[in-house]
């Protein structure tokens, strides 16, 4: 009797039921596999690495069962994997692949090549902190190391966003105004292994959104050409590289156009940035990826307590949508950039990006506070974000901000005890 009473009292509202029953519980990894399947990719060169493995396992399973027609090849390393991906793309095949952390760095040289060949592949990276020391938890050093490669960089927060950004990435990368590869990043564990309700569209719907990929001058044995040639005249190198830069800048508006079409097809709205309770706030925090969910929850609670704070979530990292970011942050009293990465000797990578965008603004925030938080998957609590916002309120009234690392007293005690075990005390 108690049970039936509980069920009667706590049944969800009907509209909630109707919007959610069409979705499936999927991890970020399985969602990425779905995106590749729905994009009807032709070729998947792969090399497994935790926490990306599940993506390749799922695709391989579907291909083995005959549910999905594509060629999947396990190669000897990420370097070969990316070389295969880029060259296959130049023949006119739509290519998908995925890696993580050490794997991304092992294939690093090829990233610049693929971008230079103007091969519009989509690569998924599942963020995992880079060794040494070895970690399995996420941060963005692997992803952000690619920021100068020429790839379009997109960062997902939720599993649904993984699916949607991969579909958007193909459309943007293959657009003639862009013709650059994309890297869609999700965070290991917090998105890759987390299951959430995900809406998987029908393949006909995806076909309406994503036209077939056509390579203008496909690489053919019968019609030889030399791709990625040596350029021995320096001005020519400058010219090609600057063309890549201009094409990357084009990707901002091409992405926005694609988002409009996406909304028309799937009724979900995206932009190059996402604002959460930001428009009317005095203070702002800037975050990206899965930890933005934690940031949003903290902002909502702080708002209920009367603190005027909002969150800017970065979605497109390269090209950097400067105008959108400037518009979102202009007029704020103070802004904190929470970098889930660390560039030793500099601090947070995104802090420099955000600061440079705002420097020339007439209405720039009085203070931009550099914060390192969540490196190596360290959790960020509500009180940590509260502390950051308190610092913003303090510095808005004067004083020069000091860079801070989010690490709590109880965590430091744990660190100290582990250090003692390591040396045998």
């Amino acid at each position, binding site marked *: 009797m*108690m*049970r039936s009473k*509980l*069920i009667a009292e*706590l*049944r*969800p*509202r009907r509209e*909630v*039921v109707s919007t*959610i*029953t069409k*979705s499936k*519980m999927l*991890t970020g990894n399985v969602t990425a596999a779905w995106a590749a399947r729905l994009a009807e990719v032709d070729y998947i060169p792969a090399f497994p690495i*935790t926490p990306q493995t599940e993506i390749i396992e799922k695709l391989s399973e579907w291909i083995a069962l005959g549910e999905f027609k594509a060629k999947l090849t396990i190669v000897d390393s990420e370097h070969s994997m990316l070389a295969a991906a880029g060259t296959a793309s130049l023949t006119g095949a739509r290519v998908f692949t995925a890696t993580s952390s050490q794997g991304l760095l092992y294939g690093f040289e090829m990233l610049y090549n693929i971008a230079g060949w103007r091969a519009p592949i989509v690569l998924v990276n599942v963020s995992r902190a880079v060794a*040494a*020391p070895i970690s*399995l938890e996420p941060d963005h050093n692997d992803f952000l190391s690619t920021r100068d490669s020429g790839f379009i960089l997109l960062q997902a927060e*939720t599993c649904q966003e993984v699916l949607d950004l991969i579909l958007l990435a193909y459309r943007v990368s293959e657009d003639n105004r862009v013709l650059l590869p994309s890297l869609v990043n999700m965070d290991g*564990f*917090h*998105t890759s*292994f*987390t*299951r*959430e*309700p995900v809406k998987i569209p029908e393949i006909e719907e995806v076909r309406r959104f994503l036209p077939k990929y056509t390579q203008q001058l496909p690489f053919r044995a019968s019609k030889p050409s030399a791709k990625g040639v040596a350029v021995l005249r320096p001005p020519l190198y400058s010219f090609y590289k600057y063309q890549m830069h201009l094409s990357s800048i084009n990707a901002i508006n091409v992405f926005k156009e694609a988002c409009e079409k996406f909304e028309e097809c799937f009724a979900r709205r995206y932009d190059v940035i996402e604002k959460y309770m930001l428009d009317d706030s005095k203070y702002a925090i800037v975050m990206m990826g*899965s*930890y933005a*969910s*934690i940031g*949003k*929850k903290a902002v*909502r*609670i702080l708002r209920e307590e009367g603190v005027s704070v909002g969150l800017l979530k970065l979605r497109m990292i390269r090209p950097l949508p400067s105008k959108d970011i400037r518009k979102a942050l202009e007029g704020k009293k103070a802004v904190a950039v929470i970098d889930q990465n660390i560039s030793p000797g500099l601090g947070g990578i995104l802090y420099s990006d955000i600061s440079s965008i705002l420097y020339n603004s007439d209405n720039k925030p009085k203070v931009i506070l550099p914060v390192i938080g969540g490196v190596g998957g360290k*959790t960020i*609590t*509500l*009180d*940590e974000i509260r*502390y950051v916002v308190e610092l913003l309120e303090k510095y808005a009234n004067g004083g020069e901000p000091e860079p*801070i*690392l*989010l*690490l*709590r*007293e*109880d965590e*430091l005690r744990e660190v100290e005890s582990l*250090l003692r*075990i*390591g*040396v*045998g005390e």
Partner: protein
Amino acid sequence: MLIYARFHGRGGQGIKTASRILGNAAHLEGYFTQDFPVYGAERRGAPIVAFTKITDEPSTMFDRGYILNPNLILIADDSLLDDPIVNPLAGLQSNGTVFINTSKSIDRLTRDRCDIRLVTEDLIDLSLKYVGRTILSTGLGSIAAKLTGIIRWSSVEEGVKEELLEIGIKGEILEKNIIFAKVCFERVYPSPLPIPKIVKSSKIVTISWLPPPITIPEVRNIGNTEIRKTGNWRIFKPIINLEKCNRCGLCVVYCPEGVVVMNSEGPEIKYDNCKGCLICFNECPVKAIGYLREVETS
């Protein structure tokens, strides 16, 4: 309404599947749900944890990551209770519910925490009876769903089916698992779960430069694995019959943990660190090694 369920167990005990059965059942019931495991070191027997969050609020109200303030805890293995690193009851909310799979009586728990509700069942016995082998995930997931008080059996049944099919369990074993889950579902009763309170955390500290070598990631404490007692990972305990043993030493060679040593008397198993993999039992050419369920040995 917010349910923060945390599952504790060991690698191989089906903790992830249990959290997914709860997640799937809640999803089918129409709630917004998130579930996720923390693998840590991916080894059979190593402590692992998994989470399921359930709410009737839109999914944007979620945060991500670990649950520090659960109102429902499910423990697959009572040996974890005394593990200071796992500390499975950490953060359990006042008036929250804890379920423990155990064959023992654990009164001391409610003596220490008189503000929590304790539910126990011997899932290993039940699974041996209904499935014919030790399987915890279906029972644990089903019990978790029942203890939330908001999930009907029909959704649990569907959740069990989907999750077991996903990991390749079908046919007769699947049917037996559903019966096992149903038995478990009917054995426990829910009581209202408290709304999890926001966790207060300690203050931010400043880190200053320290001289090496302490700041360089290396372990200089050779042989420290012995400090981590892994004997309580065992479900089955191998026992050597020295009368039958011919001292061939294969058990010493094959033991992946190096916990079988040859003494003047013959081979000896260091039970503080033996994980109960039973490779020695399988390899012994003269069948001098047998095993017992751990609960039967004390």
